């Protein structure tokens, strides 16, 4: 039985999460009607334990478990990322004034379930497990998006998400099947290794004869990742779902789910094209995939920013902003270099702080004013100065201005983009930064430049404190990004 028990240690976090998910469900049943908050605290504690386990793992040599699971620092990074965002999302749920707290057990259960999906997604080189993890994440997300099942917007969001997600999953599966047919394996490392001399033909062999079928498979698979990351043209669901879903879920989708997409993409591309013994023809092909990604990046950020400009709903605006940020992240991916991936990962980390903060602000403000329209923000800065200042910091960071972590992230992306010779792409990104200023600062303008309407804002000191902490971290890591960068570098072993 050791063959089963021993590798389970490697899966401890996943197991713990599963237990926590079920625990939340059961706990809610037990506590029903009494204190729904307790489930939240339970979730937080579980997440903390998982986080501690994961922390202890950093720096370990990569190990494999059960043939498919790979426990490495790259995965650990994104697991930590997921846990950390989930913790914040949990606090959001706890502080969400729009949440009726009925069925809160299911809420946490689905969130934790999605996290399990992410955990598997980011710690495997096997396409099956990747697919399963992705689907688990998706299924949980669909339900979460529609969690306020009595609200039409929420229901509509869930419907759109599930339709789009189902199609994307199908398309991706079809792509995976083609890849399988072309290389005879489902393991990415195997796929990259296969030389083409022996049977099955292998990636290198396929590319030597014709790149067309590979291209087809590649596009179909990438479409799946692109959908998770909301990259144009697979982004259409994003604004509608973000707007319709409960705000903590939106946060989860915008941060953790997107990060999972990035992680899977990085894993996929890294294993296929940047592995240690990749054939030169494959590496060359990787560069042209990079070109495709660069085009997608440019289109994505441009479209995201331009669309964001006219939004009246803050959530929708942030949805487009998150599309634009997917474009920025793709710069790092498109370089197809280790350093580029590092930059993308760093940007993810930056994105964590600023987007959690921004969505937290949305939640706060939605909860106090009952609307997420930008117009309603008028003069809010004078009523709730602390979180408004924090929000401005997040906006500054989203725009990519010093001294925030968003700037440093963008700096790294630009640098790697330039280093890889993608001048036009960096140029487009730079222009986009300027454009993005326009709508980000429309929010700042509403907050501080408009006269406040009368009335006061109820206080949520703890929640505001959380936002303040995020704000401080945004600046702190903006000025001293070394810690995170070191961390990212250690986690990315390409």
């Amino acid at each position: 039985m050791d063959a089963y028990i021993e590798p389970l240690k490697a899966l401890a976090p996943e197991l713990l999460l599963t237990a926590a998910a079920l625990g939340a469900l059961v706990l809610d049943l037990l506590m029903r009607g009494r204190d729904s908050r307790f489930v939240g605290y339970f979730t937080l504690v579980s997440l903390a334990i998982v986080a501690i386990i994961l922390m202890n793992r950093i720096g370990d040599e990569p190990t494999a478990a059960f043939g498919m699971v790979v426990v490495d620092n790259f995965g650990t990074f994104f697991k930590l990322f997921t846990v950390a965002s989930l913790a914040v999302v949990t606090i959001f749920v706890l502080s969400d004034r729009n949440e009726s707290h009925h069925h809160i057990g299911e809420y946490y259960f689905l969130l934790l379930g999605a996290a399990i999906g992410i955990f598997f997604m980011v710690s495997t080189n096997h396409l099956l497990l990747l697919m399963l993890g992705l689907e688990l994440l998706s299924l949980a997300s669909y339900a979460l998006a529609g969690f306020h099942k009595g609200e039409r917007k929420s229901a509509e969001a869930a419907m759109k998400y599930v339709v789009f997600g189902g199609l994307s999953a199908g398309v991706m599966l079809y792509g995976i099947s083609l890849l399988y047919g072309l290389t005879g394996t489902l393991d990415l490392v195997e796929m990259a290794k296969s030389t083409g001399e022996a049977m099955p033909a292998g990636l290198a062999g396929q590319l030597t004869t014709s790149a067309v079928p590979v291209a087809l498979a590649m596009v179909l698979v990438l479409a799946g990742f692109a959908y998770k990351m909301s990259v144009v043209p697979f982004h259409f669901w994003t604004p509608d779902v973000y707007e319709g879903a409960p705000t903590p879920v939106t946060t989860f989708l915008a941060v953790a789910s997107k990060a999972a997409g990035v992680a899977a993409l990085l894993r996929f591309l890294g294993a296929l094209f940047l592995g240690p013994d990749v054939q030169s023809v494959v590496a060359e092909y990787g560069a042209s995939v990079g070109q495709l990604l660069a085009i997608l990046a440019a289109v994505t950020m441009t479209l995201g920013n331009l669309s964001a400009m006219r939004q009246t709903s803050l959530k929708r605006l942030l949805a487009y902003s998150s599309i634009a940020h997917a474009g920025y992240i793709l710069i790092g991916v498109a370089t197809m270099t280790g350093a580029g991936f590092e930059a993308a990962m760093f940007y993810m980390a930056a994105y964590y702080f600023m987007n959690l903060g921004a969505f937290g602000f949305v939640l706060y403000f939605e909860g106090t004013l009952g609307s997420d329209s930008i117009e309603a923000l008028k003069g809010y800065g004078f009523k709730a100065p602390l979180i408004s200042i924090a929000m401005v910091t997040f906006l500054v960071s989203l725009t990519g201005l010093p001294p925030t972590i968003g700037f440093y992230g963008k700096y790294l992306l630009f640098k790697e983009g330039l280093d890889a010779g993608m001048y036009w792409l960096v140029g487009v990104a730079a222009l986009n930064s300027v454009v993005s200023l326009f709508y980000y600062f429309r929010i700042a303008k509403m907050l501080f430049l408009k006269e406040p309407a009368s009335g006061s804002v109820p206080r949520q000191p703890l929640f505001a404190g959380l936002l303040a902490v995020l704000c401080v971290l945004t600046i702190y890591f903006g000025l001293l990004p070394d810690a995170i960068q070191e961390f990212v570098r250690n986690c990315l072993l390409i």
Partner: protein
Amino acid sequence: MVDLQKPFYGGLTLFFVAMLGWGISSAGAPGLAFGFSAALTLGGSLVCIWERSVVRSAFSLMGTFVGVAGLFILLGADFVGMAQILIYVGGILALLLFGVMLSPPDMEERKLSRVAGGLVLMGAAVAWVSAKVAATVEWAQLPKDELPEMTTSVHDIGVGFIAPDKYVVAFELAAVLLTVALVAAVYIARRKMADFEPAKDIPSKDIAGKEAAMKEIA
């Protein structure tokens, strides 16, 4: 409007016959079986797309699933084929039909131009890609003579599911996935008044009213 029902089914029959003929002519009896399954698969889908009635579409989709199952069996994957029939035909389709029952029949939602346009466009795209691919593609396949015998693999599959170095994790993950799906589906589908906004707050399709109500509350 011209009734295209007859020409469509006529064409479909021709397609069926052609597939069978092609099967027989290229590989004899197994070919016939293949031709039948393939024709069932594609024909089912075509009818599904074509038919106005959701119920009919759903049932024709069953043809597709059965055809696919037949293909699986032809490929020696009888377990998969069985699973296909059980799960799809028994489970998924039942679910879908459950949904179909709930939705009122709407005969006007199909537009011929859209169907034809979609078919033509997708057909063109597939044709183009096929033309690109067919000439050059080299699937990872063994030479004909080296192909292993088709064996029943239920045991192998069972071992594959639980062997520590094979699919055990995926298997467990699938279990989690199903649990999550179950909980999700149940949660969403379960109706309880407490979860819904009071009816008066949502005059049907009147968002403005709803927003006004929200403003009032605020």
